[in-house]
């Protein structure tokens, strides 16, 4: 049987249900925030580690000429390799319910012998048969195709072929198709031939034996393979060595989860502050009873144990509510995050250690938060406790200046004074609300910075579309045809190549693309961050972008570097560095690159239209297709810059959206904080309210006093959030720069963001104060005056 003191504890908790619910809600929100991120992190980590490892991702991929069985046998026999396989990747287009979409078709030497980058069949047939196509899982929704559909597939300007969608399979090594705006699919070499596409295998995927090798060691193995391939008379145009064991987007997702985890912990801390507020108020309401208990012999430790036990029980109740909610949100968010990485979390459970951790934190957070107020409250002298009259007000600074403002109505004046009566509690409420505001405004600034960055990226390439030719042709001939098409304002034929840096120690870096417009281009004007842009008089001059420079710091402006282009080494001088976005890129003159890779011919054209608008652009692209085909320059693919922009923006703004969503959590915590503050204010002032009602205050006056007091705090938090958003913008901007793309830090929030936040805090205040105001209005005068 429970002893009387524990019965008192339970009955007090039950008696003050509203306050109990607030405390539980405060703790629960913190646990939901931090727990959901923790669940997501643990699930994503578990899935990516297990699934990605199980897929045996290629340690390196080499691009070369036609790979035959004899070469594969020799490569597979290399002692450092566990396996090798060959495939061909072809860019095509498919016509779906969503219109014409870019497609990437993969064909391998033997789908049945898929031992590198193992694919995971999900539905239908595997492997694809001749004349059928298997869609990669992440492209299914984007392409809106279903099993059994007939998919019109076209390579370049060849005749389209109807391929039956016979299966769905997942390739965890690919970035999701929906994100890349590409339909990934698998076909046989015979199907490629049916489409008129080159079918010979040209990608050599290798898997090293020792999977604990670091990137440099894998690079050395890849260099050996490259030598072997070259010894057969083939040229190796590209060697890509990804970070071993890490998914292509793992760093971004890791940083993203870390940043969100930080906000989850922040939400937990803010809910801890809320608990401090609530427990302090609970103790304030219990002071007289504490005094009585001490008078009849209770020791401070016994009193403290009673209230800490309350905190523990409330923490356990909150955990019981929050942990399942966090698991649901965490699972949903983990699937969302896994989608970004092209994984499926089905069949994976949240680790029990993570659930136990949440339970531990949930149970102990309120105990830790309550310790100081409980110890302080339990040590109060008996006389002081018995004499406690509730809230008091000494005419201090706030009272003095407010009294002098004679034009303010009394009820409003009372609200203003009330707001400042419990300054510590008000400060804690301000902290929670204004932190939410700062995160929100920081996210708004980040979004604006991203849009500005994307604007900048596209402003430096003022063309509307790019066209890739099926075969290379002389640039002057191509430009002449294109410029003759109605609606073309400017056009330039660009060359392009993939290059590999050969470092001084003989090792090679990752392949990167070189875009090669004419030296006197007007359709590429990037922002120079160091050095200069290329000049027509330059010889082998290279301009690198900042991303490439950060990957390969030796490619600084003024340095001489050796590049492997189309298997040939050449010396280059880095003359400038530019800002062109998150991908590795370099720029050189067409006049220099074209002779190296295509005997002076080019296979890309960029075009600026004379009429703006998506419809006009689309029509122009169609005209270009037909005019170029008529002139004997069939095109392989065409892309509108608006499409490309949406791909980049989708990637970048999604991250900003995630960060912004964390502010919602803070708003909930802040709203609960305000609701608790106002509930406690009403509770503490029940007697005052009774007096006001006794002397004639109407219901609406009482409600207005409470609501205005809440609004005063909310507006103060809005004001505090404005300067607080400056460091938050810097933090978010830098975090984003590390994860995705360096963006300019925007410190001054957009007016619309500031106004939206104002509306949000006013709304939160009105909602948070509604119940306390209602309670204040409903308190009977007699009971209010008798309240102790």
């Amino acid at each position: 049987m429970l002893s009387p003191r524990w019965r008192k504890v339970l009955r007090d908790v039950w008696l003050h249900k509203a306050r109990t619910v607030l405390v539980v809600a405060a703790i629960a929100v913190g646990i939901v925030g931090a727990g959901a991120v923790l669940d997501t992190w643990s699930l994503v980590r578990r899935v990516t580690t297990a699934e990605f490892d199980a897929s045996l991702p290629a340690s390196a991929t080499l691009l070369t000429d036609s790979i035959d069985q004899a070469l594969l046998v020799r490569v597979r026999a290399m002692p450092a390799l566990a396996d090798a396989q060959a495939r061909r990747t072809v860019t095509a287009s498919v016509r779906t319910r969503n219109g014409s979409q870019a497609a990437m078709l993969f064909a391998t030497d033997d789908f049945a012998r898929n031992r590198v980058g193992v694919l995971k069949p999900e539905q239908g047939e595997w492997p694809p048969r001749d004349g059928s196509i298997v869609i990669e899982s992440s492209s299914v929704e984007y392409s809106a195709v279903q099993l059994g559909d007939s998919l019109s597939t076209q390579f370049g300007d060849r005749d389209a072929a109807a391929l039956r969608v016979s299966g769905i399979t997942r390739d965890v090594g690919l970035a999701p198709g929906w994100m890349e705006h590409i339909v990934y699919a698998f076909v046989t070499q015979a199907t490629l031939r049916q489409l008129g596409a080159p079918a010979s295998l040209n990608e050599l995927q290798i898997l090293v034996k020792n999977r604990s090798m670091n990137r440099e060691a894998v690079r050395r193995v890849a260099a050996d393979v490259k030598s072997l391939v070259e010894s057969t008379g083939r040229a190796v145009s590209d060697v890509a060595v990804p970070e071993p064991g890490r998914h292509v987007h793992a760093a971004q997702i890791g940083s993203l989860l870390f940043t969100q985890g930080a906000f989850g912990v922040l939400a937990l801390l803010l809910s801890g502050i809320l608990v401090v507020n609530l427990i302090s108020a609970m103790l304030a309401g219990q002071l007289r009873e504490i005094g009585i208990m001490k008078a009849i012999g209770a020791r401070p430790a016994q009193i403290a144990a009673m209230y800490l036990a309350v905190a523990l029980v409330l923490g356990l109740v909150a955990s019981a509510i929050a942990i399942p909610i966090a698991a649901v949100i965490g699972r949903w968010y983990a699937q969302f995050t896994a989608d970004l990485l092209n994984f499926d979390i089905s069949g994976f459970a949240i680790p029990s250690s993570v659930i136990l951790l949440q339970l531990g934190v949930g149970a102990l957070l309120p105990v830790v938060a309550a310790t100081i107020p409980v110890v302080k409250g339990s040590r109060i002298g008996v006389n002081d406790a018995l004499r406690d009259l509730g809230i008091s007000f000494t005419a201090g600074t706030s009272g003095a200046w407010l009294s002098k403002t004679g034009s303010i109505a009394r009820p409003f004046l009372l609200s203003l004074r009330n707001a400042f009566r419990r300054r510590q509690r008000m400060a804690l409420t301000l902290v929670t609300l204004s932190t939410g505001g700062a995160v929100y405004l920081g996210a708004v600034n980040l979004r604006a910075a991203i849009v500005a960055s994307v604007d900048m990226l596209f402003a430096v390439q003022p063309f509307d579309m790019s066209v890739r030719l099926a075969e290379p042709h002389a640039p002057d001939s191509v430009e002449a045809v294109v410029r003759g098409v109605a609606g073309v304002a400017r056009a330039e034929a660009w060359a392009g190549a993939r290059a590999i840096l050969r470092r001084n120690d003989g090792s090679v870096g990752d392949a990167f693309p070189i875009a090669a417009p004419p030296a006197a281009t007007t359709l590429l004007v990037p922002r120079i961050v160091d050095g200069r842009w290329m000049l027509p008089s330059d010889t082998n001059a290279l301009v690198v972008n900042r991303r490439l420079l950060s990957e390969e710091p030796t490619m600084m402006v003024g340095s001489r570097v050796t590049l492997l282009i189309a298997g040939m080494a050449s010396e280059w001088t880095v003359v400038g560095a530019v800002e062109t976005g998150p991908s590795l890129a370099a720029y050189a003159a067409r006049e220099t690159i074209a002779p190296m890779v295509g005997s002076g011919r080019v296979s890309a054209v960029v075009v600026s239209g004379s009429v703006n608008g998506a419809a006009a652009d689309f029509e122009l692209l169609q005209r270009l297709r037909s005019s170029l085909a008529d002139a004997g320059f069939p095109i392989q693919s065409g892309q509108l810059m608006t499409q490309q922009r949406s791909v980049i923006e989708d990637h970048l703004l999604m991250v900003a959206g995630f960060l912004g969503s964390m502010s919602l959590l803070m708003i909930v915590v802040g709203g609960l904080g305000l609701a608790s503050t106002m509930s406690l204010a009403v509770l503490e002032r029940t007697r005052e309210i009774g007096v006001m009602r006794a002397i004639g205050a109407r219901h609406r006056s009482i409600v207005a006093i409470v609501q205005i007091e809440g609004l005063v705090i909310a507006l103060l938090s809005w004001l505090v959030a404005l300067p607080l958003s400056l460091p938050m913008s810097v933090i978010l901007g830098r975090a984003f720069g590390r994860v995705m793309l360096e963006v300019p830090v925007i410190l001054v929030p957009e007016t619309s963001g500031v106004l939206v936040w104002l509306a949000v805090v006013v709304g939160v205040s009105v909602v948070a104060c509604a119940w306390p105001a209602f309670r204040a209005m409903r308190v009977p005068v007699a009971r209010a005056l008798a309240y102790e």
Partner: protein
Amino acid sequence: MIVLDRVTKTYPGTAGPFTALADVSLSISSAEFVVVVGQSGSGKSTLLSLLAGIDRPSSGAVQVGGTRVDALSERAMSEWRGMAVGIVFQFFQLLPTLTSAENVMLPMDFARTWPSRERRDRAMSLLARLGVADQADKLPSTLSGGQQQRVAVARALANAPSVLLADEPTGNLDSKTAQSMLELLGSLAQEGQTVVMVTHERDAQRLASRTIQLADGRVVSETHA
């Protein structure tokens, strides 16, 4: 039983320090029923607070049952209070979320004086002795003032304290109930319980073995029955 030796208690105030008790010395024997009277501000409640160990003198010594109360630490003072004194307040001060019996059991719970399975029986026996056994399982808010004060007395006696201290126990009762309460305290004294009561009730002096009158923090008279 109780010895106060040159006790002074001063409180700080905005208009300068206020002396509630000034150089008070007195002694009270076991089983005495002492009534302390005086006007408001005379120092009656301060005296009781010092005897109960809920306040400390600014100077002088307070000894109760051989224990130098003012020298005890806060923790020791709480323990001592639970065992050695029972306090009855003017406003009853029963815990509103506990029943009468639970209120009486609470001091036993804190002091662990009786085995837990015996506490309810003892509480019931005390409530019966004070005539409110039928109210044992009711919450204080459902009891009359007199009933609440009887429960409060039962609670004060829970740990069989050597001294019962009552601070205006009849101040919140009607005259008839107040009279009954005074008689109850008188009977307790007759049964050997040391009782010190602060009151304004003139009738109380009739029942007391000694009346101490305070004025301006000093003992101005002592009357033995």
